[in-house]
């Protein structure tokens, strides 16, 4: 029996210990916000936080979760940093198809939780594990900076595009 928490809820499971965390979340808990992209920890679509660290859930066996705290996209908006990141994502109109964005937001939240004002190089390092085929990278970067710049959730978006967009949304 493996015991751990997902989004603050205590769980125990006796499924095959080699089952990746991703499929436990998706198929056993029906929590589909965390996405399957590659199955080899190459694309980052499945990123979740385990004890605060970004982890690729597709390649993380459930057995390794014993005693750990898992936070997913479904819950990240309840943390102050996660909320700021999600707000910045909206302000910068980051998403396109949106499929990779759960993972992008989890990686960005992990980064900003540790580093309140990351440099471009630090953003590159933290985010290069997250592939986006729509090519939203520059807006991801802008949103991370917007989130970093916002002292409170109510502060204004940082880029020109976001300010312009504000008028009509």
């Amino acid at each position, binding site marked *: 029996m493996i015991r751990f928490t997902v989004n603050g809820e205590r769980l125990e499971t006796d499924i*095959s210990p080699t*089952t*990746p965390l991703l*499929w436990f979340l*998706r*198929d*056993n808990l*029906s929590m*589909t*916000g*965390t*996405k*399957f*992209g*590659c*199955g*080899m920890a*190459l*694309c980052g*679509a499945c990123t979740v936080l385990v004890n605060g660290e970004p982890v690729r859930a597709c390649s993380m066996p459930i057995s390794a979760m014993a005693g750990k705290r898992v936070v*997913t*996209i*479904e819950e990240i*908006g309840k943390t102050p940093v996660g909320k700021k990141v*999600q707000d910045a*994502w*909206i302000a910068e*109109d*980051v*998403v*396109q*198809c*949106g*499929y*990779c*964005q*759960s993972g992008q*937001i989890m990686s960005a939240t992990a980064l900003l939780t540790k580093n309140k004002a990351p440099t471009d190089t630090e*953003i*590159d*390092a933290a*985010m*290069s594990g997250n*592939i*986006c*085929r*729509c*090519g*939203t*990278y*520059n*807006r*991801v*970067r802008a949103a991370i900076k917007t989130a970093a710049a916002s002292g409170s959730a109510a502060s204004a978006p940082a880029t020109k*595009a976001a300010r*312009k*967009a504000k*008028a*009509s*949304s």
Partner: protein
Amino acid sequence: MKSILLQPTVLNSEFPDTADASRASRAALPKRSSLTRRDFLKTTALTSGGLVIGFTLPMGNKMANAQQPPKANTAPNAFLRIAKDGAVTVQVKHLEFGQGVMTSLPMLVAEELDCDWTKIRAELAPANPAYAHVNFGMQMTGGSSSVNNSWMQMRTVGATARAMLVSAAAKQWKVTPEQCRTENGFVIGPAKQRAPFGALAEAANKLPVPDIVMLKDAKNFKIIGKPTRRVDAPAKVNGTAQFGIDITAKTVPNLHVAVIKRPPAFGATVKKFNADKVNGIPGVTHVVQIANGVAVVAKTFWAAKTGCDALVVEWNMEDASKASTVDMRQSYRELAAKPGLPSERVSNGDALKAAAKTVNAEFEVPYLAHAPMEPLNCTVRFSQDGDKPGCEIWSGTQFQTVDQGAAARVAGLKPEQVKINTMIAGGGFGRRANLASDYIVEAVEIAKQAKVPVKTIWTREDDIKGGYYRSMFVHRVSVGLDSADKIAGWNHTIVGQSIMIGSPFEGFAVKNGIDSTSTEGVTDTPYEIPNMNVTLHTTKTGVPVLWWRSVGHTHTAFVMESMMDDLAKAAGKDPVEFRRGYLAKQPRVLNVLNTAAEKSGWGSALPAGRARGVAVHESFGSVCAHVAEVSVEKGQIKVHRVTSAFDCGLAVNPLTIKAQVESAVVFGLSAALYGNITLKDGVVEQSNFHDYPVLRMGEMPTISVHIMETGAALPTGVGEPGTPPIAPAVANAVFALTGKRLRTMPFNLDEAAKAV
């Protein structure tokens, strides 16, 4: 609103193609929509007292040979619902897969409806003939045409609802409709009476649908043309957006998951299989053979995947493709040395004999996988309602009409018995518009045999190895310059597979053996080139091919714009200046080229080790130019900056348009720098993102997109036209920096050095 009657026109012939549409002049007068009353179907079953506007369009028959459109389902045929609480729900007839139609199509409706934008909700429409593409007569998303074909249709939906709401208010207030106006979700009467749309919806629904509605003059637009944030964004940042792959037992009780063991080479078939090691795996419920492999069905993906890995299949390899990239390269180059089938652009080639100089070049591009982030998937449930059998499908598809027909054939049902719920898709880039409905058909086969609802999921390996690639192509080009360094003649031979030949669309896209998707971008080049002779060899390899974001333009723009750069060099001219000399009759292309050059600081000094390259290309009715600024560091090409100018006619949502150009640049850069599917003895050599890499965050250039303000009356293509010119812009920049001419994608500086 005073009505000015224009010549009545038929809606679906109003925009014969996007290119013509883009050249149309700005409309000076309000447009009268020509939909007749009988085209409208009011459906009241859906709402409790709201207003529902829907209509059937006269079916365009341009693709009539493709397949018989299914009969109308009994599903509500509606584009718009206004609820009592004022919520305005728009049924979006195109697939949302990143390009932003869930925002742009509702913008067209909201503009004419005069509703409160914050009350807009967007839903993806299910498969139904009512949602056919206005130009193509079938429900589909492609050709960068979603906004263009919806332009009049969606505005008319909004204007019709507005007229009915106004009539309802006028009746209530005992005034004439002409005395009323609308603003931000309210009808306002002559005595400053105000009624919200929601309160009028029920009364409006009882009124006759007007024969004629007025559309706004562009100068009065309040929503169209304004940068507008995406309506699908909130659900996509908190994990609640439901993609096809996210269908669970909550939506489809007793849902199972299937993973398929697929053939090792295209064309191989199952000889026999041994499931001994599969049957004991907890959660596995079925092992079923289908046309293209053996599927393991289980309670969860992981059980199905584990079962699939344990399955032993013996394959018939007799009919399997034995294609190898190395051999194909050789044979394609041999073919390219000989003229192929003449295209519509032919000359006798004599002009080159008298040329003072000749520039010869050979280009090669590989197979490319689409690799959308959401792996292909499809959920299927068979049902039996009394004596009525049915089949319900949930999938992100660009091709509902085709898929509905294909699913029906496999299911043994009529198309109208197949319900397709269109799910938002995690990218597609053409892969989800499959002429054979491959990922739909196999899922139906599995669910039919397993007799349980099944969600079939592709692994990334299935996706990369699964075919339907952008075709490999070789081009051989010889261009003669006269003694004044002007182009005297242009001989061009293209070698590659056809998408359309053998498909249901052959009659539509193939003329005299020439698949226009193989030659587009060359034969219709905007450059004024005399004595152009374009021929085509269409090859057969057994490797399935398909459209890939910008289709033929993916390779033809690379070839044309690399050649123009080479010719500028041969003529001793600046690359921008040289191109201008062939664009005198193409003011639109010229303006875009000039804008990109100006905004990039073309000609100004750059830091040491940097250089710029330019390319411009017209596709999908739009024109895009990129200037790329590059360096070479440790033998690797680094793209620092891309400056883009883009003319897409009337820009409906500039915020999304810029995003699409950025997206197209990144997509094209991934192909230019990395994209390469190769085969050896029929086996695809790549399998996942480690050996089929794509651009990542740290490799991003800054991208600045300048949308041309042209005063155009109509929107043209947005999703694809940014992709074609990026590879040649980078290649031309590398040439300016190093003198090495990159003529093979993906770019390889060492190989280019050998070629020099």
